[in-house]
């Protein structure tokens, strides 16, 4: 036998069914809403994709083109400036080297000018000898040396001025004998490649021999035995000075000797004239 429904039970089922229906309706509405949102977003996505494609296809506007052009120009300019900078840097180094060369040349010219100026500044034989000594000390850097002049009667070279060594310590040298005699006979400079500062000196075997020449006529020799401690090697200036000394010192020496002799003769003649006229 069926059990009759109780009114309470019926009420409860109806309420729950209604509640379920409400939830279902809300779920359906929510689903609808989601579908709409989904549709809207898909549409937006398509729109954006389309915009992007169009943007890629679209030509660059005038301003952008100008900017790109300017960037390229600036890039070119940068490369140009960089290469110019490297060029200038290389030129700078070249100028620095040339400056040093010019300075050295200037120094050499000043030394040569002063040496020749001083050598021809007097006709006094002793002064000329003193100037030769000064040049050899101060411009070449010699410490011990002597100036030997050729006596054409005896064909011997004798020391007439010295520095750091006594005149008496340098014996007379026959023309063509030993290093000094050979330098005088051949008229050629002698100088070593390497400079020695130590060891005893030999007056007959100098380190450097510079013949004093008037054209090809040798009138004497400068014999250098020892150089100053700080003088480590011969420079191109030294070679120039050797050549200058070979010519100018010889001329100055010869001229001063002639002048002294003529002065002596003149005073003798004057003495005779005075004797005859008074």
């Amino acid at each position, binding site marked *: 036998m069926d059990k009759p429904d109780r009114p309470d039970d019926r009420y409860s089922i109806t309420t729950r069914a209604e509640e379920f229906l409400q939830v279902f309706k809300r779920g359906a509405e929510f689903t609808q809403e989601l579908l709409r949102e989904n549709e809207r977003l898909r549409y937006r996505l398509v729109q954006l994709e389309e915009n992007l494609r169009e943007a890629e296809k679209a030509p660059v506007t005038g301003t952008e083109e100008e900017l790109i052009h300017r960037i390229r120009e600036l890039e070119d300019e940068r490369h140009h400036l960089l290469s110019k900078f490297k060029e200038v840097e290389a030129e700078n180094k070249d100028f620095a080297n040339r400056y040093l060369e010019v300075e050295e040349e200037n120094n050499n010219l000043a030394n040569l000018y*002063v040496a020749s100026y001083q050598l021809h500044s007097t006709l006094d034989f002793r002064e000329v000898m003193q100037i030769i000594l000064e040049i050899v000390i101060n411009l070449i850097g010699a410490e011990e040396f002597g100036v030997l002049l050729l006596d054409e009667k005896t064909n011997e070279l004798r020391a007439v001025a010295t520095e750091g060594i006594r005149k008496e310590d340098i014996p007379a040298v026959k023309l063509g004998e030993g290093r000094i005699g050979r330098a005088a006979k051949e008229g050629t400079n002698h100088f070593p490649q390497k400079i020695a500062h130590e060891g005893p000196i030999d007056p007959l075997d100098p380190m450097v021999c510079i013949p004093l020449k008037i054209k090809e006529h040798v009138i004497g020799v400068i014999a250098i035995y020892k150089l100053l401690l700080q003088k480590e090697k011969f420079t191109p200036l030294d070679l120039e000075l050797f050549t200058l000394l070979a010519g100018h010192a010889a001329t100055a020496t010869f001229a001063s000797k002639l002048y002294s002799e003529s002065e002596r003769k003149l005073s003798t003649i004057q003495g005779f004239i005075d004797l005859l006229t008074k």
Partner: protein
Amino acid sequence: MSHKVLIVEDSATMRQLIGFALKRIQGVEITEAQDGMDGLKKISSDKYDLALIDINMPLLDGLKLVKLIRSDPRCKDIPIAMITTEGAREDRERALQLGANEYLTKPIQQVEVVRIARSLLGIG
């Protein structure tokens, strides 16, 4: 601006050579003294901005001259550069101990004379 420089050196060649180098500095006025005594006389009677003094000189050598200059209140502050043929370090040190500010070693280089003179005259 002028800079008065005194060269005390017995060698005429050296005086001319140093003078030649110093003339490259603008405004330099050069006075020459032929030995230590002449140098002392000149330095005591006038005001100089720099003195270049040779060590080996007759009558009064360069080292004695430096000593006298440094003890004279009228000129004790003058910058001094010694000119020396001595290459040994002890000789340079002796000169510097006596009051020299700098030294030049013979054979001198023009550019070195200019550099030292500029430095002692305070010219950049």
